């Protein structure tokens, strides 16, 4: 009965956002899984795990969202973003972007050159499952997640027959978003094709308080000034993504999956608000073409599972800077290009010795081939030479895991991981987990974990020309977690589930790039960082009668990420200080109020003050960013016709028209509007 209640509640609330599921039946099926997860006894696979599962409410909130917006709004991860369609990097528990490991269908997404992932390049509508593995828990997924890991994947549609969903968005600044998904399902074969295209001039207007327009008299004396009203310069973008998935049930408990994802992107890199160049006399542009393909074979039985995966990634990333050099056309000043080819393979298995014991093992390999070049002008005639590196590296990782639940209340687990990069091996990466069910009635579960972890240098760290340092050591981390998960009002119309986790980690040999006297930068192992804090998340659900429903999801993080490295010199005031751009507090709340076919969504996002100096200067006008508060609202109405479903949605972003910078000298858009129409024709089964 409780399951039934929860299922009905979730269907009612989620149904609005459940894109890709054209019929009510499929919605029900999709969310029945969630309801089971909530109420079932704690599964053996997740002993002691600190996880955050992003459901479709978060992933399907808005077609314009990338994973950057989703993570920022719905999780404790801090996303450093320069605005829409610009670089968005993650800080998980106060760590660097390269300390968050990201996989897509099991294959690493982190750039082997840079170590990080640009979450703005991942449309949330292309992701069906997203799970965060916090701290020690990430060892079960991959090594190197000193902050944690983000696991992204696609999954087959549930229903059979043909399904079509089309979403079009029109927004301020000539912004257009188009999303089309065509699915087909039969008893054995399921296919999904997704296409997403977004383009925008992204030339929002803002008052530039960082400049003044001076007025002069005839004697060149300043007689007045005003703040210029400028447009965001060079921010135009167009992104295209195409994803094809095939799922085949080969019988005898064998399943085959194939997913191919192509990305083509051209993005301007917006000019700073302290840049006085005219837009037509300077251009910063990044072009990216990426192809990712994964395939897998899974063999499921009652007591074991075997899987084999493979994959391939190709990336062509080009950055050019064009500027006025006196000629009629802009001249290329910087031309950086990199090609990445990565082959991936993995084999793994899980075996349940009994209902109390589970063993897991897997081994994976990523073979990278990277060519990174910079075209340098080396003669006065403009002749160019390539500066860069051309390297290959094999990265392997193996995991052995044992999980044990001697009683219904207790769970224990140990993970052992070993990693190899090039010819180097990291020391053994151990992780231990325990949980204890304190109260069955309140689902109060205590969880604890501890792990040692390592992250090895990226190829740029080692070989970048100029500046690469091939004597770098792997970064080392130790992390401890303790948390409690609970549910209040279980089975009632109004209920609240929550989780609070405390973490404590230390990282040594943190790699930092520093300038040299030769005018370039080089990486060195310098920092020791102590990171600790609290993460909390909760979901409130309520329902009144048949028409009204409410769901509120909230998250909060308190993160202290402090530098305890050796002082660079006696004048170094950065010791014991919060790392640059890491907020001490962050929070996000999403509220969804449903009434019949209407859905009102309100989103609020907060970051506390962020320092841009390692010494956390406060007596400065330019060394810190004021606390960030963002409010977005949308209203959606669904219609059901005989030919299909239609929904209209109107969204207002930056509701209070805040003028702000999220990153120093990068202006952000004020209040802006979007209108979406969604069509879901019905097809006969």
């Amino acid at each position: 009965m409780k399951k039934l209640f929860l299922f009905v509640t979730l269907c009612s609330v989620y149904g609005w956002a459940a894109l890709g599921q054209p019929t009510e039946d499929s919605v029900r099926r999709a969310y029945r899984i969630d309801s089971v997860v909530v109420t079932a006894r704690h599964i053996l696979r997740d002993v002691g795990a600190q996880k955050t599962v992003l459901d479709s409410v978060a992933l399907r909130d808005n077609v314009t969202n990338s994973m950057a917006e989703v993570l920022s709004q719905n999780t404790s991860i801090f996303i450093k973003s320069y605005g829409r369609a610009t670089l968005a990097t993650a800080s998980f528990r106060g760590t660097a972007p390269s300390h968050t490991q990201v996989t897509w269908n099991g294959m690493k997404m982190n750039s082997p050159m840079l170590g990080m992932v640009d979450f703005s390049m991942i449309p949330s509508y292309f992701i069906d499952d997203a799970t965060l593995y916090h701290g020690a828990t990430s060892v079960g997924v991959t090594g190197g997640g000193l902050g944690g890991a983000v696991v992204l994947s696609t999954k087959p549609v549930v229903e059979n027959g043909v399904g079509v969903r089309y979403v079009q968005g029109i927004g301020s600044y000539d912004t257009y978003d188009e999303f089309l998904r065509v699915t087909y399902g039969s008893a054995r074969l399921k296919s999904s094709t997704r296409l997403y295209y977004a383009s925008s001039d992204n030339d929002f207007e803002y008052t530039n308080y960082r400049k003044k327009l001076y007025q002069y008299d005839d004697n060149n004396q300043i007689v007045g000034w005003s703040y210029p009203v400028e447009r965001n310069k060079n921010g135009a973008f167009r992104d295209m993504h195409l994803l094809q998935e095939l799922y085949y049930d080969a019988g005898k408990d064998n399943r085959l999956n194939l997913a191919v994802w192509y990305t083509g992107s051209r993005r301007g890199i917006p000019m700073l608000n302290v840049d006085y160049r005219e837009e037509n006399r300077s251009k910063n542009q990044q072009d990216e073409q990426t192809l990712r393909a994964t395939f897998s074979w899974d063999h499921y039985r009652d007591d074991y599972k075997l899987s084999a995966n493979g994959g391939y990634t190709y990336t062509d990333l080009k950055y050019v800077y064009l500027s006025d050099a006196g000629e009629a056309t802009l001249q290329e000043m910087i031309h950086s290009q990199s090609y990445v080819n990565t082959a991936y393979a993995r084999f793994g298995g899980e075996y349940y010795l009994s209902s109390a014991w589970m063993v897991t093992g897997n081994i994976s390999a990523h073979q990278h081939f990277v060519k990174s070049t910079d075209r340098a002008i080396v003669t006065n005639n403009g002749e160019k030479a390539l500066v860069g590196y051309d390297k290959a590296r094999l990265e392997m990782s193996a995991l052995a895991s044992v999980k044990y639940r001697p009683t219904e209340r207790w769970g224990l687990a140990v993970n052992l991981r070993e990693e190899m990069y090039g010819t180097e091996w990291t020391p053994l990466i151990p992780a231990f987990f325990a949980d204890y069910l304190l109260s069955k009635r309140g689902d109060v579960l205590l969880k604890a974990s501890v792990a040692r972890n390592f992250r090895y240098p990226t190829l740029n760290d080692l070989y970048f020309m100029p500046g690469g340092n091939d004597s770098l050591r792997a970064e080392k981390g130790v992390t401890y977690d303790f948390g409690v998960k609970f549910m209040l009002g279980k089975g009632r119309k109004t209920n609240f589930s929550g989780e609070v986790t405390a973490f404590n980690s230390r990282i040594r040999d943190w790699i930092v790039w520093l300038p040299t006297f030769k005018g370039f930068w080089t990486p060195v192992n310098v920092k020791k960082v102590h990171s600790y804090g609290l993460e909390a998340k909760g979901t409130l659900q309520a329902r009144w009668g048949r028409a009204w429903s409410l769901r509120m999801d909230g998250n909060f993080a308190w993160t202290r990420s402090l530098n305890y490295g050796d002082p660079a010199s006696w004048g170094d005031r950065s010791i014991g200080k919060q790392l640059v751009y890491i907020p001490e507090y962050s929070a996000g709340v999403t509220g969804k109020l449903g009434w019949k076919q209407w859905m009102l969504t309100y989103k609020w996002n907060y970051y506390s003050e962020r320092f841009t100096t390692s010494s956390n200067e406060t007596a400065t006008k330019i060394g810190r960013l004021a606390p960030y508060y963002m409010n977005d609202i949308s209203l959606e109405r669904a219609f059901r016709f005989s030919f299909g479903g239609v929904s209209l949605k109107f969204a207002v972003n930056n509701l209070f028209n805040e003028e702000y910078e999220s990153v120093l000298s990068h202006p952000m858009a004020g209040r802006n509007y979007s209108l979406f129409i969604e069509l879901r024709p019905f097809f006969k089964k």
Partner: protein
Amino acid sequence: MNFTRHVILLIALCAGMCSCMKYGPMDEENFDAGEVLPGDGVFITNEGNFAYGNASLSFYRPSTGSVENEVFIRANGINLGDVAQSMTIRDDRGFIVVNNSSIIFVIDIHTFKVVGTVGPLTSPRYIHFLSDTKAYVTDLYDPRITIFNPQTYEITGRIDVAGHRSTEQMVQYDRYVFVNCWSYDNTILVIDTEKDELVDEIEVGIQPTSLVIDKYNKIWTITDGGYEGNPYGYEAPALCRIDAETRTVERRFAFRQGDTPSELCIDGEGGKLYFINKSIWCMGVTDEYLPLRPFIEDQGTLFYGLGINPASSDIYIADAIDYQQPGMVYRYSSSGTLLDSFRVGIIPGSFCFR
């Protein structure tokens, strides 16, 4: 809970979430440094981090030991910009070159208020004044030297430098301005200031970083030698002496491969050279060998900028520390005694003496 209570709760929560961000116009402060004796005022341009737009200007008075930071922002209520490269004073006006903002701010050196701007340019680096109405600006990317009028702030011309990019520092001998070309280059250019034309080129070594002229009209430059794997070449850095009259390299003082000499400076009398090579080194312009011992040893510091007060010959050394916090400036006497130290802005790069 009934429905009304839920709605009230929801509204209360939403109201609690709303708040305003603190952002907008910055206050302006009034400064008046008043009359300052020659040499008793030092401007420090703090580059700031690339693409952060957090460059700043500090002002220091040696006689009182007082230092005011962020004076440009405080006086004008706007940012100085991205990467403050250099500052040069002419007729009580300071010309601050802000490289990645592509602008030159002109300030009153007593009040720090903006009195004019020059630009936008491409990637300006240094200024050299030829007269009250003519000045040159070098550029990192533009293969031309820009000419502007310091009275009207108008760009009045360009000098084509035959494809040489990254023109840097300038010194003048007679009617000729010598310019070093740093990035992927090995040349000192000679510009005829009457014709505003490139008239000669002198090859010195890979990547000459800085340039001074001594009292004997010898021009000195220091090369960094490139780096391993550099398509332009990699060699031992060198200190080169050029005769300004004959435009020939008279002497090369070679460093060890891997050394990182930079920031060549000269004292007010033009008799002593100073440079950074991890520590601070000093040698006479008539010396026949590089010094064996450093003049001021580094003690875990990251010396980034160097300047010699022409009035007092005091030595100003900038320590960028970790490049992400306000740096330190150490002031030494010409005999090498530490006189003062003070904190300035992020990545203090150059000094300008009033």
